């Protein structure tokens, strides 16, 4: 008998140990240090001391609740738009793509082959004040003479939507593609109209994809600051911008750490609530399959 059978009790732990140790050291331990940092007072020059300073949290909420709410509104809007764009596209590829499925799917992930920042800069070019889009909208009167797209909430939401759209489409495609065509045939055989077959067969069967897509889009969107930075102005600042500037530019580590914690907590609660409502046990592991 081999090692596999003789000591099955120990082997999984041995396989897990290095990876888990790495995550404990560089994911869990940093969270502990961040918790500590968030309760410290002091400045870069006088040094920092740990004194359970919870006021940092209340001050952070008082000063930055606006950016917090804006982050979730932008992320929510971007997620809904991505769903509206992504679902029909994923549906068309999965159910009508035929032999072109893989090629079309490749087109969907092409944006990932270009660096995130450069993609966003490209939108800056497209939406620029004297660019094609703005000129066209002005010509047909949808935009006033001094109207602009860049530096508005719309531009930031559009940028976020674009950057995370493939995260929405891929899980949608995966769940739509898995649907057995015979299920749809059965629906039609039972006198289902197109609408009935869609709402009562296709849509319910694609729900796992919707749940996963919404999560994969919403989480990075809520923490994003690149789109607000490159396509917006200080009036479109999101919570990510605040964390990044407090930490890296102003050395206000306590506030940045407190904000990070609250962002993480809110997102985790939303994710777990969403998983509960949507009823996907598959979220945490693949056992459910």
């Amino acid at each position: 008998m081999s090692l596999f059978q003789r000591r099955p009790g120990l082997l999984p732990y041995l396989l897990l140990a290095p990876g888990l140790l790495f995550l404990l050291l560089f994911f869990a331990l940093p969270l502990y240090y961040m918790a500590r940092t968030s309760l410290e007072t002091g400045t870069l020059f006088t040094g920092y001391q740990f004194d359970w300073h919870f006021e940092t949290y209340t001050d952070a909420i008082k000063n930055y609740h606006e950016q917090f709410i804006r982050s979730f509104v932008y992320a929510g809007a971007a997620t809904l738009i991505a769903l509206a764009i992504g679902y029909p596209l994923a549906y068309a590829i999965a159910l009508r793509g035929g032999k072109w499925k893989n090629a079309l799917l490749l087109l969907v992930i092409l944006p990932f082959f270009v660096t995130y920042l450069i993609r966003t800069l490209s939108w800056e070019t497209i939406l620029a004040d004297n660019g094609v889009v703005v000129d066209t909208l002005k010509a047909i009167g949808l935009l006033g003479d001094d109207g602009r797209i860049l530096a508005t909430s719309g531009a930031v939401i559009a940028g976020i939507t674009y950057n995370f759209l493939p995260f929405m489409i891929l899980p949608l495609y995966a769940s739509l593609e898995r649907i057995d065509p015979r299920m749809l045939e059965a629906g039609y055989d039972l006198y289902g109209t197109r609408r009935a077959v869609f709402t009562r067969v296709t849509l319910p069967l694609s729900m796992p994809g919707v749940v996963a897509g919404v999560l994969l889009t919403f989480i990075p969107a809520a923490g994003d600051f690149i789109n607000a930075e490159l396509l917006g102005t200080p009036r479109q600042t999101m919570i990510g911008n605040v964390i990044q500037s407090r930490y890296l530019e102003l050395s206000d580590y306590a506030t940045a750490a407190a904000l990070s914690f609250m962002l993480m907590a809110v997102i985790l609660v939303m994710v777990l609530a969403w998983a509960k409502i949507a009823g996907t046990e598959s979220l945490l592991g693949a056992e459910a399959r």
Partner: protein
Amino acid sequence: MEAASITRPEVRAVRHPRLLAFARGLLNQSLNVYAGLALLYLLLPITIIILFSFNDTQSRFNFTWQGFTLQHWQDPFGVPGIGDAMMNSLKIAILATIIATVLGTMMALALVRYQFRGRGVTNLFIFIPLATPEVVLGASLLSLFLSVNLTSPPTGFATILIAHVMFSISFVVVTVRSRLIGFDRHLEEAAQDLGANSMQTFLRVTLPLIAPGVLAAALLTFALSVDDFVITNFNAGATITFPLFVWGAARVSVPPQINVIATMIFLATLLLMVLTVLQQRRAARMSAVMPEPGV
């Protein structure tokens, strides 16, 4: 392109069959048109990026079209610092890919193939980094590095590498795990019955079977690493990677060379992707032709 495989018996008595057929055709077409527009939206920025790598720009910013030139393509690394940044990105991506893929694959093997105490908690623990915004991952790692000086200066090449391995491990586990789930353990038992020891079984049966999943995880890690800005920005110190270089340039001036290199990365990734797909298709065809797939 049409869903010809699905037969739709027309059972309901229809009063205006021609009108209904027309409406149905329109609906069919409108979905295709909508999907086409969505694809155009996805591809528009890439087209602009490639196009503007040929822009004969004179100003500091590469925002408006000035005319066609090949000048930037002749000298893609002509901007000071851009070559070093690219080298750093590649080095970090290669190292992070190797480390994260090995660690993550081991974890995926343990999680799918064994029942053991603490499995549920481990699954949850691996999921949490995926549900944490990048800015939080970056900020918390910097808290650690500033508190315990692992290296001196506290952040640099090594800390970027640690960060990239950290955020990639969970992705590797998820990717490899999805491949492992349909795995037939009888194949391993067969190998052991035939006298293979556990190492031989792993190397000659298990690994080849999960190889596509491992390869996909490695490609994903490489792509995530090369592209990462947010976490890197927190933990880079004085080290500049390609995304950090772009970020710096975006605030001062965006040289067209950035578009050239982005286009080069784009084409290289595309080539790699197409080759992988072709290779897998060929492998699938081979195994379909062979009556006894090489056991």
